[in-house]
């Protein structure tokens, strides 16, 4: 049995769901951030698979941009987390509810 597009998309969907699950249940900002990275990676896998099976290289260029933007996003997000930790001494989301109505 050959591996088709669906196989890759199923793996991508499972990884995305796991990332979403992590964002929902974990309470540590850093782990939530890692789960976000996992979701971005799942999207990357889907894009590369579509690119390969639809004979179109645009998807891979998109993945290249996503990786670049994710690197910038991680840098800014971690700087925010460090700034937040300096002020509040915690990375637990339930202690960071100042904006909660």
């Amino acid at each position, binding site marked *: 049995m050959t591996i088709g*597009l669906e196989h890759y998309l199923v793996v991508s969907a*499972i990884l995305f*769901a*796991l990332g979403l699950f*992590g964002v929902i249940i974990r309470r*540590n900002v850093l782990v939530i951030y890692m789960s976000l990275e996992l979701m971005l990676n799942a999207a990357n896998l889907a894009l590369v698979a579509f*690119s390969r099976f639809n*004979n179109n*290289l645009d998807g891979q*260029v998109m993945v290249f941009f996503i990786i670049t933007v994710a690197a910038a996003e991680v840098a800014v997000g971690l700087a925010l987390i460090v700034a937040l930790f300096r002020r509040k001494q915690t990375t637990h989301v339930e202690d960071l509810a100042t904006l909660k109505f």
Partner: protein
Amino acid sequence: MSELPNILFYVFAALAVIFAIMVVANPFSRSPVTSAMFLVLTMACLAGLFTLLHAFFLAAVQILVYAGAVMVLFLFVIMLLDLQEEQRRKIKSLGFVAGLVSVGSVLAIFIRSLLIVKPGEGTIASIEGSTVELGRLLFTKYLLPFEIVSILLLVAMVGVILLSKKDLK
């Protein structure tokens, strides 16, 4: 010989899913460092899947940027913050069940739409993601987004320097 990529696909896919589970819901440890290490392994497995999809350049970039730079940044911040009391808190069971239900339904929507649409029908795996082709595309068709991304990186750098100043206003 043609069987080997198929076996490798299943190996990499299973390992990626197992490591991803260990990232979000590790039953043995709640430490962010463990999550980060398992995330590195997930990235490596995804790079293997990229290689199986003949996207060699992206596989290399995945290892260099994600498993290398991004995760080192994560580990640096974890070590910098020095978290100890984080491990003691428990996950609420109601939140766990609610998360499981919502994520399960999202996954069901994904799989079901895949089964209905069948996007892979009649397609043939043909493209080679060689660095030459990718680079050519990047500097012709995608030249403007490429430049915008470089500006974005500059802005991110300036923002990070501003955010990590000692007396943040």
